[in-house]
């Protein structure tokens, strides 16, 4: 039932949700000695997956941030994480809104009147 665009949006929602989870984890470990901030990447993989028409195969990768560490070996920066959190939230909202739009079209085509 889901067309390619909807499956692409779903893959993007999955990636963004994973990023939000890891940002929360980073913020929870802002003072943990030796903790390195985790970064999620899925966009490049999504582009490749879309070329094959199979957005489900998108790989969500987590890597460590290469930012310089503080004296306790931790490199989480609260401001960086928060900016990233806001951006991820906005992109999530954008994807949700696009998905709603697709369902709205489906819904309208199912409805008998109008």
């Amino acid at each position, binding site marked *: 039932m889901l067309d390619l665009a909807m499956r692409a949006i779903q893959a993007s929602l999955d990636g963004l949700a994973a990023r939000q989870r890891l940002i929360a984890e980073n913020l929870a470990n802002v003072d943990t000695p030796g903790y390195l901030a985790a970064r999620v990447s899925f966009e490049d993989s999504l582009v490749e997956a879309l070329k094959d028409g199979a957005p489900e195969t998108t790989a969500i990768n987590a890597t460590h941030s290469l930012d310089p560490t503080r004296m306790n070996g931790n490199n989480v920066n609260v*401001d*960086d994480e928060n*900016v990233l959190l806001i951006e991820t939230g*906005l992109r999530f909202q*954008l994807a949700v809104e696009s998905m709603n739009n697709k369902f709205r079209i489906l819904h309208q085509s199912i409805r008998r009147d109008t």
Partner: protein
Amino acid sequence: MSIFPVLNTSGSGLRTFRIWMDAIADNIANINTVRPFDEEAFQARFIVAQAVRSDHQNPPGVGGGSRAAAVLFGDPQGRVRYEPGHPYANEQGLVRYPDMDLGDQMTQLLMAQRAYQLNLAVIDRARDSYLQAIQINGR
């Protein structure tokens, strides 16, 4: 480039001013760091901010943000003071204090803090605007 460019621009401002505040914290933490006369005094840290060339094409040259490009160091001579009782004092009773002024550092701290808050305010506004843009198609 991101689809929400203001967040990157203001985020770079946050980073720059956080580093500036780090430097001021360093300076204030060492405002009383005394060195022997024949060694270098603690050198005040100065952050050099630099505009980042933007890779935007629409419009070109806007939205690059800033970065802390370099750290410069203050006078290694410091301020020589006569403190014969100090364990570091030489035969003439001289020691080196860093060449820094607490009033000056506090002023810089205030500027850095305000600039940090300004960037946060821009991020807040931008988020509201972007949210409304996302909801344009709505209902």
